[in-house]
């Protein structure tokens, strides 16, 4: 079985993001694998262990995204490919989905494609569904558990606001996962050595055999909201009743209620 994981490199969640003149920068903070994608890698590796699958990991990005791909290799993925092309600068999620779909098809027949539920930088959360649409495959989004997987069908549990759904789908399918799928494993030392030695191929749009996919959404402006001036006041008292009383008085005085 072949499983593909699509990952994205993003600024470290601890980085201080600043916007100056419409340009976003995060200083010299490191770039990392999108934390949600770590869950996608974990989900794929669980299946790799269970059904003896090959797990390929792909990412669209700059040369530096190889670092994120190497992390996935160190965690246990079997192969990694970077898709990089200057023509993809500023591509929207739909154009990325077309690019990813082309790469998935070029990689050969795959039964499953995993995505993290969203990327922490753009927070769109639609690339998985869009990629499934381009491929013409079912999209199982926000999956919290893979119950079973065999040659031609997958059963998953999906988190919804009201509870959990059990879904069954034919393969191939696209699956996006959230935290409930299981804590991502650390890279193993053996994986680290393999990743450090790995030479990751780079595919251009020409290698994928597609024209530059047209983007329909662009970002005319990006801004940082002004920092809100917040003061914190600790309310103390001798008893919970007294503290609650003072809090209620404050809330009424500030006209919060």
């Amino acid at each position, binding site marked *: 079985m072949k499983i593909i994981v699509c990952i994205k490199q993003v600024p470290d969640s601890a980085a201080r993001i600043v916007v100056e003149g419409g340009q976003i920068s995060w200083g010299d903070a490191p770039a990392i694998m999108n934390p949600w994608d770590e869950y996608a890698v974990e989900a794929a590796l669980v299946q790799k262990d269970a059904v003896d699958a090959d797990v390929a990991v792909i990412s669209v990005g700059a040369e530096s995204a190889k670092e994120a791909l*190497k992390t996935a290799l*160190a965690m246990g993925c079997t192969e990694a490919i970077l898709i990089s092309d200057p023509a993809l600068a500023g591509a929207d999620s739909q154009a990325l989905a077309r690019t990813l779909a082309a790469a998935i098809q070029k990689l050969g027949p795959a039964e499953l494609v995993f995505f993290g539920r969203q990327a922490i930088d753009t927070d769109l959360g639609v690339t998985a569904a869009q990629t499934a649409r381009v491929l013409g495959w079912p999209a199982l989004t926000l999956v919290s558990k893979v119950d079973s997987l065999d040659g031609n069908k997958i059963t998953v549990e999906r988190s919804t606001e009201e509870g959990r759904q059990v879904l069954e789908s034919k393969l191939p399918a696209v699956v996006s996962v959230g935290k409930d799928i299981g804590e991502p494993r*650390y*890279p193993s*030392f*053996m994986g*680290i*050595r393999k990743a*450090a030695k790995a030479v990751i191929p780079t595919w251009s749009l020409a290698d994928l055999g597609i024209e530059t996919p047209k983007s329909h959404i662009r970002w005319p402006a990006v801004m940082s909201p002004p920092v809100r001036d917040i003061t914190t006041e600790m309310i103390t008292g001798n008893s919970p009743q007294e503290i609650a009383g003072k809090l209620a008085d404050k809330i009424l005085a500030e006209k919060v209620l």
Partner: protein
Amino acid sequence: MDFALSEEHRFVQQMVRDFAHKEVSPIIKECDRKQEMAPFVLPRMAELGILGICIPVRYGGQGMDYISLGLACEELEVIDTSLRVIMSVHMGLNSMALLQWGTEEQKQRFLVPQAQGKKYAGFGLTEPNAGSDVAGMQSTARREGDEYVINGEKMWISLATKMHHCLWVARTDPQAADPHDGLSAFIVEMDRPGITAGDIHGKLGVRAGSTGWIACQDVRIPVENRLGEEGEGFKIAMSCLDNGRYTVAAGATGLIRASLEASVKYAHERNAFGREIARFQLIQQKIAGMVQSYDAARLLYLRAGWMKNQGLRNTRETSLAKWYATDASFMAASEAVQVHGAYGYSDEYDVERYLRNSKGAIIYEGTSEIHQLMQAGYALNFRQDAPLRCELPAYDPEIWQE
């Protein structure tokens, strides 16, 4: 000269950092208060391969180099000293000694399960009445046919109640003209009849670690458990310290970093006289001092690690790294408490634990005073390192993967 860490090193650093941060950091304060090691720590470090990090793959290890060991120790001690202590005794003082001195049969019997993390290992040198004065030890091993009979007590032993194998140094020749030549080293399995062990509580620091005593009363071990030749015990013990001290140096460097990071964070959070305290020059001076000692300590331990990789004798450089880093970590932690003011004095913040934890390493594995004598000895030509019968093997990336 290349000061850059390799990609492999950076991955190792990140992996150990993530483990310590995600899994140990949330519970460490509670363990420290309870004076107990969290039960999951040793099995989890075994499972992740950290307990076999720099042992060749054919001996059950992960086949990384000695610099990786140092980096791991730094990351572990950023979270808590007790984590690094595990590496000091299990890896530095025991497993690396087996790699250096063990016969092939001993490596298969003892090193393989240790590197795989199936057995935990420790080091029994210090006694109730013999610390720096190693040759003054009273523990004995009497040869009887194909066995040795061991008697004596070891004290201040890390993992005393957790370990399966103890590298035990005892006197085999009470008549030796030079008492150093009368010592021998043994691997003692802790489940042999006649062994008792217990934990010591009430330590100033490293309270989340296991420190204790081990007593041997007529404990019989086969001759095959002797490490090295009879009479080589002192040399073996000193070579163990070359490795143990390396892990202590790297760990203390992590403690400096932890003190620095905590101080920087707090200096930006805390306001006094209408501005954050980071704006005050006397606070900046403390921060600058921590930066200075962190960089110096780090360079010193990485040099020692590089020398180990090259197969160069590093007794002097390791001693220097250990002496400097441990003294500097005590100073950094103390200044970190000062930066935190009264809050630093309570366990609401971590810096008081850093200060308590830093003191031990100035005493164990060669007190700072011993290291000063060693450094002066080298400088004054009173001291030379004679080649050893068995040297720690140089790291070879090919051979270590076989």
